[in-house]
């Protein structure tokens, strides 16, 4: 089959590799019809996530048709499914309490030591995302082996086309959980850092959960415009002092909740951010946590900070005092996708939730490297790239 493989920083290629096969009884093989490039794939592309190996197949947002099933799979050939990016067994303690992204059994034993050492506990398995999370072959390919196929994949009705449901795999539930973690109350003002796909869905979700105001922060005019269309007020951090603006826009109170939908590769010119860029480049693994830090200072005392943005390592000069003295609640984590899919699929079916506005480009799988380059370099207009292994030319 053809697949997008990683070979190093800013070096991804479409190559011919072995087709996957059923390995364990609960597996299924999916023939991919649509697969997206995620903002977190750019962290891999930029080489800031450890545990990558040459030849790894990327991609963790994908859907397609079931073409093969293991003896213990509950799927049937021909079904159309969206596959959550988190791999979850359904039987461990964490899966049973719906903390699916903390599944204890999906990361192969021989891959668990690295994250166990770094974080104190091993991470769960994720598709197409570094050997720390299992080294599973991802969805930017013609076929994918999906373990625990009786737990993760969501069967979608035929009348909903791919573009409407594909984002159930990650960014839609991730934006939703980000808003849920912000514990939004009526009359709240919520600030969202980052108007990429997750930030935009967090804006949408926060409003759906009853936030009185949402203030979206970015520097790409097109992305700010998308946030504005969803109902957010906007701040362009290249033009405006963000903290001052947030304080003034809330009458001196500060925002009730903050959502960091940026993560470890924040843009911007804060001094600590520049230092962290240098550290990342020389490989001493500091996260560029300038958004996290700024959000802690911007949120009101007793407020909440929700972190869907990806961090992987350590950071310096962390405003620990602000966290403690202001009594801020921080909630973070990879998304428990399976917890939200039924509800969100229903909202899509009812027409309450639209995700298609986000897609800026649809490309054949063969053009995936160009998709990465443009998604990385032209973030203003390339808001979301969907790869379609079935198509030959750009639609």
């Amino acid at each position, binding site marked *: 089959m053809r697949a997008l493989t990683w070979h190093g920083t800013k070096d991804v290629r479409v190559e011919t590799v072995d087709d996957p096969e059923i390995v364990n*009884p609960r597996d299924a093989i999916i023939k991919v019809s649509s697969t997206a490039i995620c903002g977190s794939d750019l962290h891999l592309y930029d080489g800031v996530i450890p545990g990558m190996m040459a030849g790894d197949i990327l991609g963790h947002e994908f859907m397609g048709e079931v073409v093969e099933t293991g003896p213990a799979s509950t799927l049937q050939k021909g079904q159309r499914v969206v596959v959550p990016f988190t791999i979850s067994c359904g*039987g461990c*303690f964490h899966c049973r309490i719906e903390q699916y992204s903390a599944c204890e059994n999906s990361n192969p*034993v021989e891959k668990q030591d690295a994250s166990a050492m770094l974080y104190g506990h091993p991470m769960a398995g994720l598709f197409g995302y570094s050997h720390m999370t299992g080294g599973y072959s991802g969805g930017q390919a013609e076929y994918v082996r999906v373990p625990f196929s009786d737990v993760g994949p969501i069967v979608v009705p035929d009348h909903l086309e791919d573009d409407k449901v594909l984002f159930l795999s990650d960014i839609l539930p991730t934006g939703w959980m980000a808003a849920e973690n912000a514990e939004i109350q009526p009359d709240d003002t919520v600030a969202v850092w980052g108007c990429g796909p997750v930030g935009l869905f967090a804006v949408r979700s926060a409003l759906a959960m009853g936030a009185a105001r949402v203030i979206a922060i970015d520097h790409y005019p097109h992305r700010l415009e998308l946030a504005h269309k969803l109902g957010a007020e906007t701040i362009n951090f290249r033009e405006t002092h963000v903290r001052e603006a947030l304080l003034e826009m809330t009458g001196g109170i500060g925002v009730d909740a903050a959502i960091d939908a940026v993560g470890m590769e924040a843009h911007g010119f804060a001094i600590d951010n520049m230092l962290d860029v240098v550290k990342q480049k020389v490989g001493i693994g500091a996260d560029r946590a300038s958004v996290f830090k700024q959000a802690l200072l911007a949120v009101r005392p007793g407020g909440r900070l929700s972190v869907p943005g990806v961090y992987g390592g350590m950071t310096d000069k962390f405003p620990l005092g602000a966290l403690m003295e202001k009594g801020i609640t921080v909630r973070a984590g990879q998304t428990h996708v399976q917890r939200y899919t039924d509800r969100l699929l229903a909202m899509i079916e009812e027409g309450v939730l639209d995700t298609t506005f986000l897609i800026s480009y649809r490309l054949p799988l063969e053009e995936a490297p160009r998709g990465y380059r443009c998604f990385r370099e032209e973030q203003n207009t390339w808001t979301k790239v969907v790869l379609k292994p079935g198509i030959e030319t750009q639609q």
Partner: protein
Amino acid sequence: MTSHGRTHGALAAGIALAAGAIALAAKQQNRRRHRDHPADDAPGFTARRDFGRYEVVGRSVTIARPRAELFAYWRDFTNLARFMENLVDVSPAGAEGHSVWTIRAPAGQSVEVETRIAREVDGELIAWRSVEGSDIDTEGRVTFEDAPGERGTRVGLIIAYVPPMGEAGRAAAKLFRREPEVQARHDLKRFKMLMETGEIATSARRKDAARAAQMENA
């Protein structure tokens, strides 16, 4: 095959050292409070001490399955090779409660160790040790306790062994790898996967690669 609570007259004088190591490793607060350790409630094997000429490895894992089910699976030693990486096979030996463990050794070789059940408490504990004259002097004990609430069963594994010399030494090193704690943890986690999900996770795309990945450290 063994009645509840029955022991096999084991842990006699000749094996006092290993038994002592296991017991020390298993003991919790009371024993440790009476020795020259800081008083705390942690399992003995987490203490910063050594156990004489015995290497002692202890690990525990919580498995969301009933205690009786886990006990029964472990009690059939022929199952152990499914999740213990460096075991080729365990088969029943002549005498009751005796087994022959075939352990992977370098260069495609293997080494055999005969063990017998030293003590057994139905649903709670199985202890075994190598018979006299064995190439590897080892003793192990697995315990099963109800975990809080709906969490299932806490499974504790303690293995003591004398790092031997020669061929058998190399085999023992294979069995326990360079870091025995890592091996014990890996084996217990594979046991957990098998019990909770019915399979052992692999990220391999193909069956042959899955086998290779699981043998990676063998």
